[in-house]
């Protein structure tokens, strides 16, 4: 469904992505992990062309999005939901208006229908009571949930998450993980998650891709990822004290 073919990206002559190849199947959840500067967020931004690749192809259902014109790009972007690292809610709008915004701008739904959909989504993310609050008046975790509600309200085919648990306490992080996991099961969307948080990656993903120096150094299912002999993967797991027996030790059999 999503295929990166030899994607290269340079900033001021400095390579960030050095021929990235990655395939994401329809309906699967893949996490991109790696150290800072490995190119995770840059990879995510290429999928919606917030950044332009220096060379390569990026195929979405066989269509190279790097060659789309403005109208084609706008149409393709409507298939995406994107949760930003800082949620990126418009500060002068209430949570309700933020979530309703893409429906008001891009659909012909009546205000009643919009109200129904926004209410349902806010209830899913447990934010019904904060609907009339402004982003500045809610916590970081609530902002992330509001961002998530805005990302899913248009019922996209593909969801992109940029560090969904960064800056949150561990308890709230697991709440967000569960929310992401439940939404994916319910909506059946293809998801790409950029994260540093290995607990998050291991619990919500079908596959995990390790990015290192602008290329994919390993892609595997979580259980195999834990047993990887790849030095980069081992260093990354060890730095977060993730043992190969994670799935036996982690309480409550995680989210499944």
């Amino acid at each position: 469904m999503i295929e990166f073919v030899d994607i290269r990206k340079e900033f001021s002559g400095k390579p960030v992505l050095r021929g990235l190849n990655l395939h994401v199947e329809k309906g699967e959840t893949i996490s991109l992990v790696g150290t800072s500067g490995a190119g995770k967020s840059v990879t995510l931004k290429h999928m919606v062309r917030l950044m332009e690749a220096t060379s390569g192809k990026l195929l979405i259902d066989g269509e190279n999005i790097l060659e789309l014109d403005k109208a084609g790009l706008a149409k393709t972007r409507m298939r995406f939901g994107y949760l930003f690292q800082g949620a990126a809610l418009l500060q002068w709008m209430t949570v309700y208006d933020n979530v309703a915004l893409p429906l008001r701008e891009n659909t012909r739904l009546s205000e009643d229908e919009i109200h129904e959909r926004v209410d349902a989504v806010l209830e899913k993310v447990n934010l019904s009571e904060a609907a009339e609050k402004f982003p500045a008046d809610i916590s970081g975790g609530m902002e992330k949930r509001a961002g998530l509600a805005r990302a899913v309200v248009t019922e996209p085919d593909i969801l992109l998450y940029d560090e969904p648990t960064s800056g949150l306490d561990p308890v709230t992080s697991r709440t967000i993980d569960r929310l992401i996991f439940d939404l994916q099961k319910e909506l059946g969307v293809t998801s790409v998650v950029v994260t540093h948080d290995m607990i998050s990656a291991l619990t919500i993903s079908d596959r995990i891709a390790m990015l290192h120096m602008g290329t994919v150094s390993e892609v595997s299912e979580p259980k195999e990822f834990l047993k990887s002999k790849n030095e980069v993967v081992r260093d990354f797991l060890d730095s977060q004290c993730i043992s190969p027996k994670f799935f036996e030790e982690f309480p409550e059999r995680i989210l499944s």
Partner: protein
Amino acid sequence: MFIREPYECPECSNLFAKWGHNGLAFCQLIGQAVILNVRAFVLIPFMFKKRIFPEVSYQLFFTGIRSLPVISVVALFIGMIFAIQTGLELQRFGQEVQVGGAVAVVMLREMGPFMTGLIIAASVGASIGAQLGTMTVSEEISALEIMSIDPIRFLVMPRLVGLMVMMPLLTLYTDVLAIAGGAIIGVTQLGVEMQAYIDNVVLYSENKDLYTGLLKAVVFGFIINMVACHQGLTTTGGAVGVGKATRSTVVISFLVILITGFILTKIFYG
């Protein structure tokens, strides 16, 4: 879509090549800013759409009504200062009665639009630069783009309407208040009869002075929006970047207003 990766000047040892690359970077900057505002200008017919009009109304209010206190004080005192300076000189020749004409012509032709432009650039322009800059660094603009919401229609166009509509109205207001300020000084300090002051204002002011002044105000409104929105939407580098964008908005607006003001004066009076 905004260009987040601007033209980069390669490291050149040759001084002329370096100047050439810097020139290209500058041209790209100007081109981007002009195209951004022209695209917003083309979208003005959509301002009455149900979902855009509230934002347009707010921008009209924010630019116009919220600027009235500062403009009132500046206009009144500019008129008084100008009347004192010219009035005292004219008094040496027994011509203090001409002070009304001097204040009116200077305000209508030059100082009205110029002073209003500077005040609006420093208040509204800086505010637009800072707001859009903050939205850019906190990825709110990217969020709009991903939702297929055109930031030019959603953010730039309403601000352009606010500035292009309110600048001439505020300029007219500045002109009237400054002439009134001149009258206060003329009557109380220079001993000019009120009726004589008014007659003198009417005698020396021409319709052309008013029209050219108001035209300048519209152009200055366009310039302030062009600079502020471009600076805001191309902000990089977090809080420091927002600070730089705000500063650049004010400085560049001042310079462009000054230079454009001269060019327009040369065209109409040269």
